[in-house]
C-alpha cells in the first residue's frame, strides 16, 4: 500500500513538472540529431547523472541494501538491446516517450489517447501472446 500511495504522489509531481517543461526522454536525442537542440537532452543527462549519484547516497542514508544484481546471460542482454532498440525507434515514430504520451493525452491530444489505449492493451497482449511465443522460439 505504501508503494501505491508513494507512486501516485510521485507520479503527480512528475506529471506536473513534465507538462510544464515538455520533458521527453526520447525527444532529447531526436532534437539533437535533427536540429542540434540540447534543451531536452540536458534533461535526459540530468536524470541519468542525478540517479547515478542518488543511488549510493540513498544507501548511505539508510535504505535497505539492494539485492545483488543478477548476472545477465547473453540471451537477456540480446533481448534487452533488441527491446531497447524497438522502444527508441517506435517512440520516435510515435512522437515521444511513454511519459510524454501520458502528458500529451492529459493535455487533450486524442492520438496520444489512442496511443495509451494501445499501450495498456499491449501489456495484456505481451503476457497473452508475445511472451509465450518468445519462450517457445527461444527454448
Amino acid at each position: 500500500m505504501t508503494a501505491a500511495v508513494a507512486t501516485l504522489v510521485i507520479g503527480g509531481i512528475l506529471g506536473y513538472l513534465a507538462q510544464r517543461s515538455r520533458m521527453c526522454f526520447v525527444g532529447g536525442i531526436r532534437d539533437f540529431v535533427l536540429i542540434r537542440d540540447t534543451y531536452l537532452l540536458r534533461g535526459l543527462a540530468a536524470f541519468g547523472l542525478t540517479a547515478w549519484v542518488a543511488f549510493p547516497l540513498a544507501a548511505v542514508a539508510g535504505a535497505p541494501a539492494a539485492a545483488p544484481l543478477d548476472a545477465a546471460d547473453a540471451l537477456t542482454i540480446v533481448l534487452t538491446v533488441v527491446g531497447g532498440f524497438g522502444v527508441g525507434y517506435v517512440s520516435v515514430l510515435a512522437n515521444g516517450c511513454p511519459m510524454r504520451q501520458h502528458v500529451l493525452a492529459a493535455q487533450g491530444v486524442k492520438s496520444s489517447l489512442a496511443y495509451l489505449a494501445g499501450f495498456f492493451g499491449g501489456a495484456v497482449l505481451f503476457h497473452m501472446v508475445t511472451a509465450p511465443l518468445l519462450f517457445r522460439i527461444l527454448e
Partner: protein
Amino acid sequence: MGAAQCKGAGRRRSASRPLRKDSRNCVIQMADTTTVEPVTIGRPLRVTAMHTGVAAAVLAVAAGAFFEVRPPEAYGLCMACHGRDLVNWTLNAGLGTHLAVAPASLVFPVLTTIGVFGGALLAAVLRREFRWWMPERPVPSFAYGAIVMNCALIAGGCSIRLLLRSAAGETAGLMGFAGMVAGVVAGTYWLRWSASR
C-alpha cells in the same frame, strides 16, 4: 504579456535579422522590427527539462529506497512496467486471471501512470493549456503504443527505467539504454529520410 518575459528577447530586437524562432517557441519575430511587434506564443517556460530530470531521478531513487517500490531493483519509475502492473493486477483481481505482476505490485499495484496523467491534467487545466486535439492518425498511434509496450517489456523497462537501471550499475540496463539510443537515432534518420523523399 510582452517579449520581455522571454529570456534574451531584448537582444533580438535588432533589425536585419532573418525570421527566427526561439528554441522554446517563445518569440517569433519578423525581420523588420521597426513596424512589427514581436508576437509571443504561449507562456515562457519556468520549469526546464533539467529541473524535471533532476526531480525525476531523486523521486525515482527515493521511491525504490524508502517507499517499498522494490523488488526488482531500480523500479522506482517506469511507465511501461508500472502500467503493466496496474493493468494486470486489475485484470487478475476482476477476472481471476494469473497475469504476471512485479513483486512490488503484488498486494496493491503501483499507480505511477495514473499519477503522471493526473498531474499533467492538473498542470494543463491550471495553465489553460488543455484543449481537444483531433486525432491525426489514431490507428497508427494505437499500434505504436502496443509495439512500444511489448518492446519495453521485452527489454525490461521503458526509456526511463533503462536509464535508471544503467545509473544503478546494471550491465544489461546499460546495453539496453545503448540500444534505445541507437533506435532513436535510426528512427530520427528514417523520419528525416521519409520526409525528404
